[in-house]
């Protein structure tokens, strides 16, 4: 019976869902896993953003490239995350490299698409006026198109970040996982430990919400002009 018990059955047998004593004994473990979760998320989204900016600039420079780039992003995005890790492990082992490569690829479609939508959505009259004042094409991209695309780009970063925070838990299967490590271990213990699963899940959700709010704040900071409406 014990070896086959599910967390639900364990709970039914009286194991506490919120076991403060366990949490107090394991604050170091929880903290380490949370930090790992954050690092994996930030590194993956950061790399994804840099890569996406590069790809988007290529697509903006050579229009015919945007189709293939978005198609590639779409294919990468559609690979199940489990399969992605399985495919990468033979090359990079059970390492953070494997995790980051997989996580980064998931952000590329969202980010490239949003950068392109944002940049192409800048009104033509603003660009013509800038050109007419004597902006060079490079100055128009850096000084007009990209700044005005910031709200749409950050919207993409928000979706990518929340997605990655969810996906990081899956990397538990290759020995990483941040808070996912807590969840997986909680399941694997004999008997299962519901409090571990609960802590891993709740903190993962809290991280997603916190990052999303922080990004909203960042956007407001970066785009003061969108806050003040016409009278």
């Amino acid at each position, binding site marked *: 019976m014990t070896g086959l018990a599910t967390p639900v059955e364990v709970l039914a047998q009286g194991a506490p869902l919120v076991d403060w004593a366990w949490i107090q004994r394991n604050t170091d473990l929880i903290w380490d896993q949370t930090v790992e979760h954050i690092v994996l998320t930030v590194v993956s989204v950061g790399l994804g953003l840099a890569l996406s900016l590069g790809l988007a600039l290529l697509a903006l420079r050579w229009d015919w490239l945007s189709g293939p780039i978005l198609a590639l992003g779409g294919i990468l995005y559609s690979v199940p995350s489990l399969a992605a890790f399985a495919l990468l492990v033979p090359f990079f082992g059970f390492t953070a490299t494997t995790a980051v490569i997989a996580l980064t690829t998931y952000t590329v479609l969202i980010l490239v698409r949003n950068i392109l939508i944002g940049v192409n959505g800048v009104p033509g*009259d603003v660009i013509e*006026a800038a050109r007419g004042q004597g902006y060079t094409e490079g100055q128009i991209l850096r000084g007009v198109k990209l700044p005005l695309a910031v709200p749409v780009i950050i919207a993409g970063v928000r979706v990518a970040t929340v997605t990655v925070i969810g996906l990081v838990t899956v990397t538990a299967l290759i020995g990483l996982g941040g808070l996912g490590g807590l969840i997986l271990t909680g399941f694997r213990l004999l008997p299962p430990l519901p409090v571990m699963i609960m802590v891993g899940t709740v903190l993962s959700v809290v991280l997603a919400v916190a990052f999303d709010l922080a990004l909203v704040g960042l956007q407001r900071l970066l785009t003061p*002009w969108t806050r003040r409406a016409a009278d």
Partner: protein
Amino acid sequence: MIRLVDVTKRYPGTESPAVDALDLTIDEGEIVTLVGPSGCGKTTTLKMINRIIEPTSGTITVDGTDITSRPAHELRRGIGYVIQQIGLLPHKTIEDNVVTVPRLLGCDDDRMADRARELMDLMDLDQSMLTRYPSELSGGQRQRVGVARALAADPPVLLMDEPFGAVDPIVRRRLQEQLLALQEDLQKTIVFVTHDIDEAILLGDRVALLRVGGTLAQYATPTELLSEPADDFVVDFLGEERALRRLSLLKVADLDYEDGPVVDADADADTARAAADKYDANWVGVTDDGRLRGWLWTSELGSGPTGSNDTRDFRVWIRPDDSLRTALDAIVSTQNNVAMVSDGERFHGMLFVEQVTAELLK
């Protein structure tokens, strides 16, 4: 100042050119309005001058220099550019927008800040707007910021593409008057595109009327255009109100208006009746020291001096610098078909409807 020689623009995939072998010379310090029906190539012509659009063939020179002799962005920094959609940078404050070109030219911050304030004054905009964003301003204010931006680096040439097309008529009128007042001081060479013939006539020192297909129908001063239209197309484009439009270009002071049936307050009744008869009128005006006191029917003249009678006030007054069109409007609203001309102090004379209609028939 600006010279287009044999300039043709053919857009890819179109059979007929948008601008066809156009020759146009714009002198220094004048406003030339480009006007015509849609498809006449007026905007294309304008945008070829700052190379937003590159001509298919022909040459354009500004101040004697071929515009293709240096990079387009450098050329554009020396030419003010205002478009209908204004195109202020929404993510920059008004101050940053205004000093766009000085910044591109590498001016230092202090000078740019001073220049921004100067331009706000020039355009009659409040300094407090400098820290705001374009979305916080009204359409008319934004358009004035657009003009300020075009003037910021003090370019000798301004290109304006239907700049007042998107604002309401009252604001447009004010912007037009402001532009004319500015031009008195600045003496820029301005090329101004509009589809509104009234605007073209009001603003232009010369009007270039283009026909569909991008050829010049007539290039003349507004008065010439209205009094000597080159052909039927021009007549059609000027419309039914061509004669009335011409009146709007003439001032009351341009006519030899007469004193009318007026006598001094000291004059006796016979003199007053004689004055009225001379104009075939049954009323007479009374002046006091050059000021017009009022009028009375000849039947009301008593035996004493004309000034001893009660008088009624003249209700319709015009000024010497009013346009004849304004004068005509005023005159036809009176019973006697006459308006008093006065500069507010002194009585200048009377303008009869016949004098205005005579001008219409010229």
